[in-house]
């Protein structure tokens, strides 16, 4: 990839993070998973009163100020530096996942490889390769009260990620609630996927052409 491609990819990821941030409601405690979700603190509006949780043992953090010195002892799930707020607290990994499975976390924002019409999520394993990483994704899908998937609409090779039925191994039995890509935002209502809004400059025809997953309009 060229430097220009890198900028383009980062721009797409930030737009997904921005749209996802608008799904968060004041007062919610929100876990941020690895990847695009950890960009969300950078794009929050000042008037949003949301508290972030990170699986590695911290509640109450924000994006690192541009002129701040990164502290290697304070990182998010993507292992990037963050900074404290007035109400910050720290805890061990068993307590952190107790909060997650114990239904104390309002929202989990997670990335994914594939999602499907039943709301199922595949986010951890490509068959034929060794099982390399699951992290906290299975715990978060099982335990968070609301699950938002924030991911690019297509894979790096241009293949669809919103499919009729996941072909990759599932992360949990539980479906997502909201799905945000750079092209559109969807939500699940009564077991069906419903288009909530289209991104600026994206037509419904264009969305349908890149979305094998059936959805209501």
């Amino acid at each position: 990839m060229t430097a220009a491609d890198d900028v383009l990819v980062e721009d797409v990821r930030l737009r997904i993070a921005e749209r996802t941030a608008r799904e968060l409601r004041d007062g919610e405690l929100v876990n941020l998973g690895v990847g695009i979700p950890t960009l969300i603190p950078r794009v929050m509006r000042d008037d949003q009163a949301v508290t972030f949780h990170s699986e590695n043992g911290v509640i109450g953090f924000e994006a690192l100020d541009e002129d701040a010195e990164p502290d290697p002892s304070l990182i998010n799930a993507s292992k990037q530096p963050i900074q404290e707020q007035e109400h910050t607290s720290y805890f061990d990994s068993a307590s952190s996942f107790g909060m997650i499975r114990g239904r104390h976390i309002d929202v989990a924002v997670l990335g994914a490889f594939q999602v499907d019409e039943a709301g199922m999520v595949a986010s951890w394993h490509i068959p034929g390769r060794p099982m390399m990483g699951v992290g906290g994704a299975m715990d978060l899908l099982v335990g968070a009260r609301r699950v938002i998937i924030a991911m690019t609409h297509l894979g790096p090779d241009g293949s669809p990620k919103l499919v009729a039925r996941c072909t990759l191994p599932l992360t949990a039995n539980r479906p997502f609630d909201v799905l945000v890509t750079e092209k559109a935002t969807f939500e699940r209502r009564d077991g069906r996927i419903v288009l909530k809004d289209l991104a600026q400059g994206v037509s419904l025809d264009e969305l349908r052409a890149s979305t094998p997953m059936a959805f209501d309009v």
Partner: protein
Amino acid sequence: MSVTFETADECVSRIPDGATILVGGFGLCGQPYELIKALQRAGTRDLTIISNNIGEPGRGLGILVRSGQIAKAVSSFFSTNKEVLAAHDRGEMELELIPQGTLAEAIRAGGAGIPAFYTPTAAGTRLADGHEVTMFDGKECVLQRSITADFALIYARNADQYGNLSYFKTERNFNPLMATAGGTVIAEVEHVVDSFSSPELVATPSLFIDVMVRKTLENGLDPVQGEAQ
């Protein structure tokens, strides 16, 4: 009551070939680098390492991947270190993937005398293969055995001379859990005080700690960098 201080090399000389070792940290944050480097110098082989990640290429636990000392790794996320995949593909390293919350709880339970527990995490997925599954309250749950190990290598920012520990920010992660689940627990600590300003500050009581190492900054280099190779 006071705990003994040894060098990192003296500490790891207790660890035989084939040992199972819990190693604290989330990525490189909160890993006991001096103890990991001492293990590399000792050349101890056929180790089973249980840690949330297996370092990064040539950094943290990654130095033991390069030196071929790890026979098996148990972790929730190997993907931070591509050299783990390469070692696995060469047939040199067995890998066991466990969801992070299940891994943390298995260590907590292991240190607390609970031999196994049920969790809804991983139900209906390939990571439930080989596990007994039972319904509780209409929810499928997976039976998970607890985890203990011969040794635990942990990191704490502050200690007193008795072996009471406190942690700093997100360096805490798996360290206090692993302190309870290792047969012999070796703590690498950054600062040692005579006693904490208040006993309320102690996060891990000294009873769990067998021996301590003071972290040293060799040549003023950032220990996070590990061994440049």
